[in-house]
């Protein structure tokens, strides 16, 4: 390449970059000069209230995110059809948190700083919520999650609350049931992960308060041989055994070895285990009478029935992920009520939501405690003939 051609190339490249830059800036100006499409349409009406929406819209958890987006849209349309909030319609600003902290933080930054919303529905995943909380706090924006269940989020911030119960709540529900049964000593075989630890903490807080004793053996996830740990627990002669596993798989492994040791004892299991209908059915003999606490749906609730039929009518499909969809739906309606009560102020919105008491929705009666968690939520279940059923006694 000669010297002249080199210079020519440099000039061409510089000119191209300059052109691109000029084009980009003029585009931006044009964009900022034209009013947003939404406002144009609602000319004569009042401007919409923007509500942030931080859910996983791509990636592994997108199947949840998509269903939640549909549910939230349904609720917003219903609300807007009857006049929105004081005549102003709600508008969802959708952002993709991809169920991870990094993307959720970026998305939250945009919602808070660019869109300047005062309330965000999400993050749907616990990891999204954990990453979004500091940004919500800095921007004084209320963060209202319909799906995050990690006990790490309890009391995390004045700006965070959720209408989906913490995993820990099942621990206290089960502890109550154990005390009611008159059990004095419970053996725990617990997997060394956050979710089982959270359940154990909540269980032991309540159970020991009621005078019970807990003996426990922990195991790392890779363990396949529980025999000696179980032998040891058996020698403690407990009244019941809590299989505190992260997954149905490790729960099933423990269960198999309990049976092989000829140990017949009342069992308690986690909702992750109880939620796997196939495994429960396959082990129905060993699990007969086992207790679990699940956050399920109440099919007799009229508001829930209405959600199911409205969803079917609008999208032509059955309501997916029902236990999450019900809290998603309620979260939108609670947001409406909060906006109507206190207006567009992040701090006050959070305050209003955090004092929600017996708010009636599709997921039943919603009460949010001062720690930002939904109070209760899990119902006691018992396994009968391979089916997880509501405890009636």
């Amino acid at each position, binding site marked *: 390449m000669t010297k002249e051609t080199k210079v020519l190339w440099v000039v061409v490249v510089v000119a191209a970059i300059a052109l691109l830059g000029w084009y980009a800036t003029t585009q931006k100006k044009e964009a900022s000069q034209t009013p947003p499409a939404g406002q144009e349409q609602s000319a004569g009406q009042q401007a919409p209230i923007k509500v942030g929406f931080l859910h996983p819209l791509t990636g592994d958890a997108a199947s949840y995110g998509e269903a939640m987006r549909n549910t939230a849209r349904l609720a917003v349309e219903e609300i807007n059809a009857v006049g929105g909030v004081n005549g102003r319609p709600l508008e969802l600003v959708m952002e993709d948190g991809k169920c991870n902290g990094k993307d959720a933080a970026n998305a939250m930054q945009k919602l808070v700083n660019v869109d300047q919303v005062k309330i965000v529905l999400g993050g749907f995943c616990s990891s999204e919520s954990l990453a979004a909380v500091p940004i919500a706090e800095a921007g004084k924006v209320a963060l209202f999650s319909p799906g995050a269940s990690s006990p790490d989020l309890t009391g995390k911030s004045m700006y965070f609350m959720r209408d989906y119960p913490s995993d820990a709540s099942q621990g206290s529900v089960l502890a109550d049931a154990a005390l009611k049964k008159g059990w004095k000593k419970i053996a725990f075989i617990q997997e060394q992960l956050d979710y089982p630890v959270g359940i154990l903490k909540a269980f032991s807080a309540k159970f020991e308060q009621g005078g019970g004793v807990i003996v426990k053996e922990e195991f790392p996830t890779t*363990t*396949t*041989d529980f025999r*000696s740990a179980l*032998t040891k627990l058996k020698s403690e002669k407990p009244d019941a055994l809590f299989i505190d596993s992260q*997954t149905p*798989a490790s729960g099933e*492994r423990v269960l198999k070895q309990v049976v092989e040791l000829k140990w017949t004892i009342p069992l308690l299991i986690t909702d992750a285990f109880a939620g796997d209908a196939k495994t429960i059915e396959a082990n129905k003999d060993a699990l007969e009478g086992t207790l679990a606490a699940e956050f399920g749906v109440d099919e007799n609730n009229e508001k829930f029935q209405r959600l199911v039929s409205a969803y079917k009518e609008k999208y032509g499909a059955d309501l997916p992920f029902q236990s999450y969809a019900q809290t998603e739906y309620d979260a939108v309606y609670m947001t409406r009520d909060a906006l109507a009560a206190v207006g567009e102020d992040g701090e006050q919105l959070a305050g209003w939501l955090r004092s929600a008491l017996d708010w009636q929705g599709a997921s039943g009666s919603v009460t949010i405690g001062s720690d930002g968690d939904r109070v209760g939520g899990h119902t006691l279940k018992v396994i009968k003939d391979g089916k997880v059923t509501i405890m009636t006694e």
Partner: protein
Amino acid sequence: MEIIAQIIANSLIAGSIYALVALSFNLMYATGKFFNLAIGGLIPIGGYTVLAVTVYLGLPVGVGILAGVVGTGIAGLLLDRLIYAPLRKRQASSLTLLIASLGAFTFLQAALALLFTSSYQTLPTLIDKNYSVFGAQVTAVQLILIISAVACTLGMHILLRKTSFGTAVRAMSDDLEVSKIIGIDTEKIFCAVFFIAGAILGYVGVLVGFDVGLDPLMGFFYMVAGIVGAIVGGMGEVLLGYPGSIIEGVLHNTIIYVYSAAWGSPITFVLIIIFLLFRPRGLFRK
């Protein structure tokens, strides 16, 4: 009393699994002089073959078990022919072979996960029988495991002492080059060694599959435990892997009972490290 009996039984069950892995490891180590980490990938092949043959194809369990043992043997043989033999030809160091075997391990694990998903699966019950020995509960499969470990170790001992194949293996274990010079077809012996070692691992996978179920990553723990058992007994000493592994099993289960389940593995391995520092040649070698 009942508890002590159960802990002893648990130790024997665990130790027997380690002993079978140690046996396979020692056989390969004595001849090939390298740490074959593909063990961790070969073990689950046995169990998954049973799953494929009996559950997916609907053939009798006996066929599945046979296919699992022979299939894993062939897999072991293929690893040697495709990876280790060419490397040996090029005079590769034992470190190169170790890294190659680590690659094989990763590949096998991933391939199994792709074929069978990485979720936990159970095999149908083999023999639905429980035995009570001094108050300890032992299932039929566990009893087979305990007996197999002794039988395989003794069988291997006889094979190595009484046959010309055994003489060749022992010669190769002493010196590979001299073995070649005196006319031993070492590559042929390697084929047999890797097939037998693979078949033993397949058998372990089959029994463990029936005992606690299957997942593609299950082999790693048994590989580590088996190699530790071999080290305790004395590496390359085919007969001594058994007592080494049983000692490891007893140690592990005693710690769980006396102390806690969470500390079972960490304390066992710390003791092994201390042991290696002071007696690297193994417990029984002079």
